[in-house]
C-alpha cells in the first residue's frame, strides 16, 4: 500500500533512480505530505534505495492479463512471466 501519494513522490524525486536522502524528506514536508509518508521517507534515508525501489507503485504499471482459454504462457519483452 502506498505510504505516500504518488504525485508527491514524483515531485520530490527528479527521477525513479534517484537515491533517497534527507533533502527528499524536507521537500515532502514542505509539500504537505502525510506524517506516515514523512516517517517512511525518514526511516529510509540511509537505506541507499531508489525512488523506484521504495515506491514501485508510483513508477510501474499493473497488467492484468487473461485469456480464453486460460493456461496460456505470457512473455513480456521476451521474458516468461507466468500462466494466465
Amino acid at each position: 500500500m502506498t505510504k505516500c501519494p504518488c504525485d508527491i513522490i514524483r515531485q520530490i524525486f527528479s527521477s525513479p533512480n534517484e537515491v533517497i536522502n534527507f533533502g527528499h524528506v524536507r521537500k515532502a514536508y514542505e509539500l504537505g505530505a502525510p506524517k506516515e509518508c514523512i516517517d517512511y521517507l525518514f526511516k529510509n534515508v540511509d537505506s541507499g534505495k531508489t525512488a523506484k525501489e521504495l515506491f514501485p507503485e508510483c513508477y510501474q504499471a499493473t497488467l492484468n492479463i487473461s485469456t480464453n482459454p486460460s493456461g496460456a504462457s505470457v512473455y513480456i519483452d521476451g521474458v516468461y512471466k507466468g500462466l494466465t
Partner: protein
Amino acid sequence: MALTVKVDPGKHTIRITKPGYFPIKFDITVEAGKTYNISRTLIPTNAVTIQKVEITPSSPKKGDKITVKVTVKNNTSTTLKCRLRVWIVNVTIIGNPTFSLGAKATYTWTGTWTADRTGSLRLRVAVDVHVEEHENGADYYETDSTYKDFTVSERKATITITTSPSGASVYVDGKYVGTT
C-alpha cells in the same frame, strides 16, 4: 484466472502462447501507476475444419464442366474471418474466397472448372483463419487441408453402323469391332 504483472512505464511487447492455439503478440504502452486489463481469446489451430469435398461428375470427361463443392465448419464460439483455397495441383486455382463464419456455423462454397485435359488430377482444398495478432504478423493461417484424386477421361464419339444386308463385319482403323 488473470496473470498480474508489474512493468515499467513505456512500450512493452506481450506474447501469449498455448499448445493447440495460434501464438499471438502485441504491443502495449503503459503509464506509471495505472492498471491495464488485457483480455484475449485464443484461436485454436483447428478452429475451422473441412467437412466435405464433392466433385461432380465423379468420372468427368474432357470438356465437362466440373463442379467442386466444399463445406467447412467453424468449431469455435466466435465469428472468424476465413479463406478457402481450392486448386488442382499443377493445373489451376479454382477459387480462394474469403468469408466470415459465425460461431459453430458451416459454409458451403461451390466452384467450377472446365476440364481442358485428360489424366489423373489432384484437387486440393485448404481452409485458413485470419489471426489478427499472430506472432508472425496479421495474416491467414491454415487450420485444415485435404485432397481428392480424380481422373478426366477422353470423351468418345459414338458411331452407329448399319448395312443392308446385315451380318457384315466392321473394322475401324484396321481393327475388327463387330458385325452389323
